[in-house]
């Protein structure tokens, strides 16, 4: 039988894969993909904790996951819009070259 810890491990793995994508890729969209993966991992955690938690009657975790998904959708829309406008402006989406904030 599956236990919570297995799910948590999967979720942690997912999270780290997302982190990997966000850390090691140079392309802005990859970073975004990484972030999405991390968010998804978080959602998985929410649902898992709800399912295995003491009060599965109240669907709190589910609700949070739903909201989180909705917010992630908004985030990805804006993020991609940013990518596009950055691309228009600099003709690149390589984040290594986007270092205007360099101190």
């Amino acid at each position, binding site marked *: 039988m599956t236990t919570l810890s297995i799910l948590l491990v999967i979720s942690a793995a997912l999270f780290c894969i997302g*982190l990997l994508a*966000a*850390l*090691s890729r140079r392309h802005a969209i990859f*970073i975004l993909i990484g972030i999405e993966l991390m968010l998804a991992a978080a959602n998985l955690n929410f649902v898992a904790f709800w399912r295995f938690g003491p009060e599965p009657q109240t669907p709190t975790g589910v609700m949070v996951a739903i909201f989180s998904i909705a917010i992630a959708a908004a985030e990805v829309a804006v993020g991609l819009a940013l990518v596009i406008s950055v691309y228009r402006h600099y003709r690149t989406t390589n*984040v*290594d070259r*986007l*270092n*205007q*904030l*360099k*101190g």
Partner: protein
Amino acid sequence: MNHWIVANLWLIPAIPLAAALSILCLNSSRGKGAAALAVLGQIVALVMAVIAFVPTLQAPGWRAFHNFTWFTFGEQALRIGWVLDPLAAAMLVMITLVGLCIFVFSVGYMADDKNFTRFFAYLSFFSAAMLGVVIANSLLLLFVCWELVGLASYLLIGFWIDKPSAAAAAKKAFITTRIGDIGFFLGILWLYSGSGTLLFYDNGHGCLENAGLLLLGASATFVALLIFCGAVGKSGQFPLHVWLPDAMEGPTPVSALIHAATMVAAGVFLVARVYPLFSAGAIDGVTPSLTVVVSIGVITAVMAALIALAQFDIKRILAYSTVSQLGLMMVSLGVGGVAAGIMHLIAHGFFKALLFLGAGSVIHGCDHEQDIRKMGGLRWLMPVTFLTYAIGMMNLSGVPFFFSGGWTKEEILQATTHWHVSHLPHYLMLVGVVLTALYMTRQMIYVFFGNKRAASTHAHESPRVMTMPLMMLAGCSIVLSIALTPAWPWLHSYLNGEPAHFHIARLIQPMLFVSLALVAAGIGLGWLIYRNVAETDPVEQAQPALFHFLESKMWLDELYDWTVIGLSKMAARLSDWMDRNVWDGLVRAFAGLGQFFGIFSADFDERGINAGVDEATGGTRGLGRLMSALHSGQIQTYLRAAAVSVLALLILYAWLT
């Protein structure tokens, strides 16, 4: 008792008002229509006045009133109304009759004026307001109409707007009367708070009836005096008479109507109307307020008559004569001869209007020349004017028997003899009679007798439309005398609310002879002095200083200019200066103080705090340079840092558990 006319008395002023409004709406080119409307309005008003006059004859002392609520404030209803009694009825008839004559006269006199319609609108408006004053049964309504009369007077004096002197005169008239009205207003307030009502007659609750007077008590004197202020202003009594001669800047019919026959008489009417206030608590018919009235009246009468002696403007002479006569009426009222005063008022209305219109006719004939020194010998050139003017002059001088003015003046003199306080007024009045005859003779001789002078060479008789009213007024002033004789003192009894009886024996009285002698003395003296007048006045030659004193109106205008007006102007300038400098300056000082603190603290900032901050900034800057190396501007570097931090947290967690 309640006749139809009582409830509908308001129609009498309303009709001229309607005429005025409809004239205002007329195109200014419709001169004839305007005149017709105005005259028609006046005729209807006259008919209504006569209709109103009839019921007052029913019984002696008949009085009816109609009160209604004007508005309610809080729980208190403010009521106004109108009253019909002999006083009002007689005044109504007089005003409408004289008004009608003057309206007709104006049609001829103002024929060439480009603002013909406006003139008639103003005239009708004035007539309406004046009739309103007469019928008012509430001091408030009276005051309202009173002010409107003042407004109409202002408009008419300043009718020739392009003349600066006219504008100045109008302004002076308005403000001077306004000064009196302020007192009047306070009087109203006092009366209202004292008696709780402003109605004259209200079934025993009015302020002139016993209940009201009882409530008022001792303050009645002050109330009466304050109200008298209004009368002083409006009736041109000393010391507020200065506006009346200046008001002659207006067209002559205006002078006739307003500044001779009606409006200036309103003050006298007012005193007569609220006479119970004056006489409240009287001992032998003497109260402090009445004494004041007498004093003012006497001073005015004599002073004005003296000044009239030294004037050259035909209308100014008449103006001062008016002032003088009004003083006479005041004296009469003050000494208790209410009926006599009113009788003189009515008679004066007719003959003074006659004189003014005659003067207007002369002016019209002499191409708008008003200086009597430039006239002369008009007797043959303007016969109708001359004759009617002479009748007017007889009236004014107080020639008895056929002239109403004679009877009424005698009546007044009679009344003054009964005054206990002092006989001085009586003697001064006698002097006044002489003076009146004197200056009228002087004027007659200057204008109508002697040789033709500059202005009279091309003089011509006025058209019929102007002479007809003259004859009409002359006729009235003679016919009226029938009702004034001591043998059948109908008007006297009517006004006093007594039945009139015919006693031929009373026709001849000692006073009659005194009066006759005085008038004769006056006229004779006049004839003696002035029979050979030339450009310069004989009196001026004899007594230049005195004459100059009188000619410049006893320097009262100058005195006022220097004192009252100068002081108030200074007060005004002072207030302005205070405002700009002191009050504002205080504010600015506060602001400056604030600014000072601001600057001070800014300085402190600069020296004290900033220095420390500068030091700190230097250090920070170095540190920042160090830190900025870490800031590659690349997101992933930051992300990595975050991830490592998470790791660090995990390790920390592990270490702790």
